[in-house]
């Protein structure tokens, strides 16, 4: 094989077998989605081709594809609002009753108005193509986060309750998601969860000959009730599917979503899907053993033995996040949060603040618990609750979204980052925040740093074995450094607008702030 062999498409080096790894991965990845998503595989139309069908939209780009359709980023011209256009595979809807069922289900889904659920703006059929126009979520999906590296348990504990909220809301309306998986869990830039594709699996599954239609009841109650069940087809993603969904897809209820969320939770905690028999997560990674019970309960094969409501699942997770492991009865912190929430959520203006505070408090409690565990002792530490946002991510006590603990106080944040933005007293939107994972290789005692995102002048992953942070950043010149009473260290490259905060006791957590513009 010639050393110069390059891929004609992406110009990457070919493998010794003559294949381009990156393109092969793309190809196999798409196949993976097609296989697991549905039997309908298709090549999505180009944005130009769609433009003709949707004159009211600027179709910007294809942002996702899978067995159940393709998603495009679009702009609603009149409203000047970003939206996501989802089209179902063109082959779908051949059978005569489909149009009616589609409209009925879509109407029910469009009524799902919840902050944790992707809102449906419109739906219909354009030149034979079924589509949904939806809220565009500027962020990433959970699969992308998982693929980049494991999500910290703290982040998992902040994400799962939000998914529970969304599910409980939908379940209360009688709507089952049926295809909860990391790809369908979106996170916006504030770390807020938005669940996508509610009920889509049912709509797509209903296409085909094996349909038993019920004409009874009003359209809404029919769509919402369990009477309307389409027999025969299994639709969903096998790895996340509850056993009863595999066996009797027509008899699925909301508890299948709870099972799938259990799978997602397991994956967030351990980085992997459970093998059989299921090994408790705490045996694979160092986490609170109480989480084992929660995860295993959600993953009970008998739906009767699972959590019966997503809200109960949520309470369990929050209780663990907010109380230190130990014999004392749990629930105090949760009650505090609930009271706070009840007080704040009364007024619309306070709603956002309430949510933010809730998230912040949750993160704080999670962090406390985590620190205690990391130090091998139990009990809350005396951290004052102050919050802030940089780059759209919540900082608690200098911890980033999800609770990165760098041990800086708010005063120190202000000193380092400058005064908060003028429209608020706790936002520093001019600073971009990057998380760095610092891995200690036990065999060599060496450090390896990985950046979540690109960092100027440094490679995005593995910037070197044996390079402590300072060495790796030598290219930036000598920083000014400072250590606070709590042992948190600050390295500042003032001329570069780069600030790094870390705590030697918490070597796996480093936060890098980077100034995005002068202020």
């Amino acid at each position, binding site marked *: 094989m010639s050393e110069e062999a390059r891929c004609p*498409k992406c110009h990457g080096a070919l493998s010794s077998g003559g294949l381009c*790894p*990156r*393109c092969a991965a793309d190809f*196999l990845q798409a196949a993976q989605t097609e296989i697991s998503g549905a039997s309908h595989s298709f090549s999505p139309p180009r944005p130009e081709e769609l433009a003709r069908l949707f004159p009211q939209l600027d179709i910007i780009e294809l942002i996702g594809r899978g067995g159940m359709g393709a998603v495009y980023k679009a702009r609603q011209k009149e409203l000047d609002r970003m939206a996501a256009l989802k089209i179902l595979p063109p082959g779908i809807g051949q059978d005569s009753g489909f149009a009616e069922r589609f409209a009925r289900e879509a109407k029910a889904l469009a009524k799902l108005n919840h902050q944790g659920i992707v809102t449906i703006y419109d739906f219909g059929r354009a030149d034979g193509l079924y589509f949904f126009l939806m809220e565009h979520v500027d962020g990433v999906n959970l699969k992308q986060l998982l693929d980049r590296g494991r999500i910290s348990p703290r982040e998992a504990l902040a994400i799962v309750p939000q998914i529970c909220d969304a599910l409980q809301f939908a379940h209360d309306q009688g709507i089952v998601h049926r295809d909860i998986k990391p790809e369908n869990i979106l996170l916006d830039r504030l770390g807020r969860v938005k669940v996508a594709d509610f009920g889509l699996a049912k709509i797509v599954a209903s296409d085909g000959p094996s349909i038993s239609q019920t004409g009874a009841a009003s359209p809404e109650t029919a769509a919402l009730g369990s009477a309307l069940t389409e027999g025969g087809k299994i639709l969903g993603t096998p790895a996340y599917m509850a056993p009863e969904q595999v066996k009797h897809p027509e008899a699925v209820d909301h508890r299948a979503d709870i099972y799938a969320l259990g799978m997602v939770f397991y994956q967030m905690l351990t980085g992997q899907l459970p093998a059989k*028999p299921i090994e408790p997560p705490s045996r694979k990674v160092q986490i609170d053993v109480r989480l084992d019970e929660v995860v295993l309960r959600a993953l009970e094969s008998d739906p009767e033995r699972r959590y019966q409501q997503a809200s109960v699942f949520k309470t369990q997770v929050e209780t663990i996040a907010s109380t230190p492991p130990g014999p004392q009865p749990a629930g105090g912190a949760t009650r505090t949060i609930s009271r706070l929430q009840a007080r704040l959520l009364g007024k619309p203006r306070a709603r956002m603040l309430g949510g933010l505070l809730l998230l912040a408090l949750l993160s704080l409690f999670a962090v406390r618990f985590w620190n205690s565990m990391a130090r091998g002792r139990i009990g809350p530490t005396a951290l004052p609750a102050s919050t802030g946002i940089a780059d759209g991510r919540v900082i608690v006590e200098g911890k980033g979204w999800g609770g990165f603990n760098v041990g800086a106080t708010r005063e120190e944040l202000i000193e380092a980052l400058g005064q908060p933005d003028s429209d608020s007293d706790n936002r520093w939107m001019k600073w971009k925040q990057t998380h760095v994972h610092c891995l200690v*290789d036990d065999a060599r005692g060496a450090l390896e740093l990985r950046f979540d995102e690109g960092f100027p002048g440094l490679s995005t992953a*593995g910037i070197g074995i044996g390079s402590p942070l300072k060495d790796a950043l030598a290219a930036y010149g000598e920083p000014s450094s400072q250590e606070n009473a709590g042992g948190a260290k600050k390295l500042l490259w003032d001329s570069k607008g780069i600030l790094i905060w870390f705590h030697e006791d918490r070597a796996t957590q480093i936060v890098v702030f980077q100034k995005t513009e002068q202020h």
Partner: protein
Amino acid sequence: MKYMSAETSSNALPRAAFPATRWSVVLAAKKREQPESAQALETLCRNYWYPLYVFVRSSGWAPADAEDLTQEFFARLLEKDYLRVVEPQKGRFRTFLRFALKRFLAKEWERIGAAKRGSGQRPIAFDAALAEERFSTECAGTLSPEQLYDRQWALSLLNDAAARLALEYEAAGKASLFAQLRPHLTAERGSIPYGRIASALDMSEGTVRVTLHRLRKRFREVFRETVADTVCSAAEAENEIREVLAVLSEG
């Protein structure tokens, strides 16, 4: 392909039968010597020796030592010493081997002692010169031994899958057809010049579409089978496929 009977553990979920793969055959037979298991293990070792060589080399051993060490490791592995000791890493052949090799490099090698090094055991035939050439061109850079190992492992899986597919087409007497279509194996659908391929092969465009579609579909299946051969359950297969694809897509 044979299917194993479903698990009978009390909390076992109803699940699709997972085919008996090479790795599951090796594990199932760990307690006693069985020729079927020894053969399966040997086949696996033959397919995946290079990532191990890369791991040893990038851990700092000189080429000659690396060759000896890799062979010695295989010798011990085939004697089944290692299969008895490492429990949690066994779900996947890749992680099991990496763990066992790391352990071997850290401890066993010292114990064996210099006198016995390079005892001449060569359980797996591999071309050390070629390995070294590949190592020097492919493995430059700042990746850790673990990352290099995972990367080479992923590439081995990909190459193995392509080779298996080539063999299938060869066996069906379609070797030259495969050679002609191979450049388009993983191409983006929109970018495939069906017309050009059709005239080159003197086939109708429709036939080319169908043939290539089948080839690509089969490649996906073969890739899944190839990965499945190195794990022992369907869930591990999903995990492994996801991780391998993530490594490959890093380019």
